[in-house]
């Protein structure tokens, strides 16, 4: 659709979508850390659904970047939307890759957590567990995204550095197998 536009080599621009699920937006911040290379990226990429565009639903895309794991029903819906619209889906950051910090609640009972937080904590009077249908319901456990849908690539890190994200994306856009060597590959 954007064939040739703004691209001297006449290549179609790649359509890219991003989302943060059960994450902290740290990976998105890290994405912005590619700084002026964003301009080079924009030469080759159009953004679809992303916090950067405020587009609410994902259209047909080439690449989807997912930050964060799956902790509630809405996360599942967004992830499935990305999977069905993106040719290549990439897990970005520790939470998407292995559940990360939110998954540290996995050895606790969800019912007990909700009860303690909203009903029995010492400073709560007349508390109630939120039940507005607008609010997504939490899953009993937090899951990395590869447990829910097929994932094509993983960029680990908490967060992965801007350099790592840039290296990974430019490899992919240039048709190389993406590869993170020392010291860009890290889990923390």
């Amino acid at each position: 659709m954007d064939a040739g536009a703004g691209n001297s080599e006449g290549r179609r621009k790649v359509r890219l979508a991003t989302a943060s699920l059960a994450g902290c937006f740290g990976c998105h911040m890290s994405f912005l850390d590619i700084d002026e290379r964003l301009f080079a990226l924009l030469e080759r990429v159009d953004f679809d659904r992303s916090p950067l565009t405020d587009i609410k639903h994902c259209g047909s895309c080439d690449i989807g970047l997912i930050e964060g794991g799956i902790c509630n029903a809405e996360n599942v819906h967004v992830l499935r939307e990305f999977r069905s619209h993106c040719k290549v889906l990439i897990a970005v950051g520790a939470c998407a890759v292995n559940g990360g910090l939110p998954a540290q609640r996995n050895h606790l009972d969800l019912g007990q957590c909700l009860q303690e937080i909203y009903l029995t904590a010492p400073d709560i009077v007349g508390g109630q567990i939120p039940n507005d249908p607008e609010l997504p319901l939490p899953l009993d456990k937090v899951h990395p995204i590869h447990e829910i849908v097929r994932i094509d690539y993983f960029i680990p890190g908490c967060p992965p550095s801007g350099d790592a994200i840039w290296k990974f994306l430019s490899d992919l856009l240039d048709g190389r197998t993406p590869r993170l060597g020392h010291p860009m590959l890290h889990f923390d």
Partner: protein
Amino acid sequence: MSKECFETERLEELLRPLVDRHHADPLQLVQILREAQELVGYLPPALLTATARALRLPRAQVEGVAGFYSFFHLTPPGRYRVLFSDNITDRMLGSGELLDRLCNRLWIERGKVSEDGLVSVDTTSCTGMCDQGPALLVNGQALTRLSGERIDRISELIRAQAPLADWPGEYFRVEDNIRRRDTLLSAEWLAGEALQAAIGRGSEAMLAEMQLSNLRGRGGAGFTTAIKWASARRAPCHGDDGLRYLVCNADEGEPGTFKDRVLLSSYADLVFDGMSVAGFSIGASKGLLYLRGEYAYLLPALRENLERRRRSGLLGRALCGQVGLDFEIDIHLGAGAYVCGEETALLESLEGKRGIPRIRPPFPVTAGYRGQPTVVNNVETLCKAALIAVRGGAWFAGLGTKQSTGSKLLSISGDVERPGIYEYPFGVSVDQVLQDCGAGNAQAVQVSGPSGVCLAMHEFSRSIAFEDVPTAGAFMVFGAHRDMFEVARNFAHFFKHESCGFCTPCRVGTSLVANCMDKIGKGLGTQYEINQIFKIHRLLHAASHCGLGQAACNPLFDTLQKFRPAYERRLCSLDFEPAFDLDQALAAARQMTGRDDPAAHFGLAARFPGVAS
């Protein structure tokens, strides 16, 4: 505090006689724990502490051993511990329904102890009663031929707290079911005849006969027995009081195998003769019989037999009147661990440790039990050695095929008219066996148990022999109406349960494949899981520490190759699905919030809230 002191004192008092009986030997730890548990009902923390103190062992080591074996309980089980044999053949005979029925009758949940502490019901690995299943163990005692009626009666007996001695004797009857006899099972012999023949020949000549016989181990691996014996005989003992040892491996744990059970119950003289012949030939003055815990019911008869031998001069000092020729036999009871069938894990267990296979080399023939030269032979192998002592190696070599001399006992179970023990000369075709046992519509035979090979119909012309289809004896037949996926799934769970956990690939890999099989079984599987199974199979085959891990994915690999539609009809898509039920994952939150709107559900339930949940 005083109560605790009293408790510790009481436990030490209780332990003293049995620790003394075992000369406070730390290598007897497994036996001591078994006996202590029989007295107390389970192994409470204070008992482990007292045992450690009495044996001068680190407490953590005692707890490590106690935590390894399935039949040791660190928390109180029911006063009646019911364990259903969970081999696929038991399941095919309806054990699953019977287990549910018993749980319902007793108002208990499987795997949990009843609130009054009276009873617990769970499953255990194959108890070796496949020819007369479904089977179970109550407080370690074997019950056979269960039926709905018997289960109802059993629930009444348990509720009435009737001692096992008052239960109908019929329930505990174990049949031999010998259906075809060849040279071994039709042999007529007198206790001691083989030992006398071996002594008459002299140990060198006896070894020469063994070599001539070309007898190969009947436990499955098929190593030439004469080479094992000669190596151990040659190997130097270590230390001043070094002894050689002969170990009879009666840890018959391979699901579907029960030939050793029959040999030990009706041919025990031959087994002990074989042990004595082997001991004489390798220069061992001590023999150890490692009996699997599931066969504990055989123990009194075996002990009586040993006493008889002692009185007849066939056991103890100066065997058959030969001054200086001594041979003792001890029986060690296992405590529920399939891996101990592996000879070096068995030696570890004999030494009172966790049953972890050793690193080889060194091999047991040079450094085995207590670090001394040791021969470990299968029960059937030793019986064959006894026959060779009497009738000579040339006679034996004339039976069977050139590479697989002699006969083989097959334990036949599954979809056949006449399950039981069949003895054939090696070289018999699978077809012939199927015909003899009345397997009309077989679609598959699992030969040599889950770690063996699954043969499909087009392979039934193959023969039972080391050079074609080797076997330790199990022969489980599956009729055309059986679901081969469920067969493989049962085996996957068996290996997960029995992995010793020593090496990474087997410890984690057996769980991962069992999870894959459950996912496919739930209808959530895709091509992705099939690929996973193949990948894990390759890794386990290459990198596992012992044969258990190397073989753990064999049944999945075989059935995927030969019965693929059984898997494919369960696959839900070619892409990917989560292993868990997403809608169920919201259940806790639904309950806490009281919500039941469409957004509080996944799948069908999202469109029809309130219906599915």
